[in-house]
């Protein structure tokens, strides 16, 4: 296995962790029992931090390592800007989910849900950028 293969695996593994975070937070919003929402939120926070770090570090490394990609390519710049936005939105979603009565059946606040769907939309655009690579 070459360096590129490891970089891609770690980058994609990070993306899996980010989407897993969305699913875990989504489970809290979908009415997970109160005793479960704490562990879901905690694991979601860890996966969001680890996934965010892996996607950014190894994504930039890939852009430098692969001939034909440059850090200033439009789709890569767009992804980096989206990463910055998603980091802040994700942090706020994590706090909102944790503060929401630890996910009791009363459900999440409207603001938390709005932030959650914003994070989901950003993640979807992220994935579209990574697969379609517009302009590459």
């Amino acid at each position, binding site marked *: 296995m070459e360096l590129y293969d490891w970089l*891609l695996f770690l980058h994609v593994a990070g993306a899996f962790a980010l989407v897993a975070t969305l699913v875990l937070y989504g*489970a809290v919003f979908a009415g997970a029992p109160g005793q479960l929402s704490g562990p879901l939120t905690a694991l979601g926070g860890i996966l969001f931090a680890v996934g965010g770090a892996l996607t950014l570090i190894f994504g930039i490394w890939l852009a430098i390592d692969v001939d034909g990609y440059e850090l200033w390519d439009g789709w890569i710049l767009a992804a980096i800007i989206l990463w910055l936005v998603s980091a802040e939105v994700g942090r706020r979603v994590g706090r909102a989910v944790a503060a929401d009565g630890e996910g009791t059946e009363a459900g999440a606040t409207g603001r938390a849900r709005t932030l959650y769907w914003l994070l989901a939309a950003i993640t979807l655009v992220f994935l579209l950028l990574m697969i379609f690579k517009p302009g590459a």
Partner: protein
Amino acid sequence: MLAAIRPSDVELPLFLHVLGAMLLVGALLVVALAIARGWRTEPEAAAAPTRFGLLTILVGVIPAYVLMRVGAQWTEAASDYPESFDPAWLGIGYITADAGALLILISAILAGIGLRRLRRGGGLGLGRAAGVISVVLLVAYLVAVWAMTAKPT
């Protein structure tokens, strides 16, 4: 380097395949966590998280698996590989996907029966079995993600 040179008509099916795989891993994590939570609590408090885990198999794991598997088949068809193309990573993908289908089917049956028994105060054992299967699937799909990206020869 396949990602850099793949034909453009592969992108949509690949997107669906990857999205399905990511949702599948997330849903399996929820199942494993929910059932583990139920396993570690008193029997009377274990029903709610176990029920949530079993429901997640039916409404989360199965649709995500279908998206992943349909996307995989569509991606392979759109890639137009030659007849002799049979790399190890593709084989690992098929093995984990198809063996995974069997395990998910078993989990779904356990979930269906378990949910009915939970209403009558039983079903925790079936839930635990489904939880163990979800952990096995998580490990298998981690290997599959490695194989799909690192593409070992």
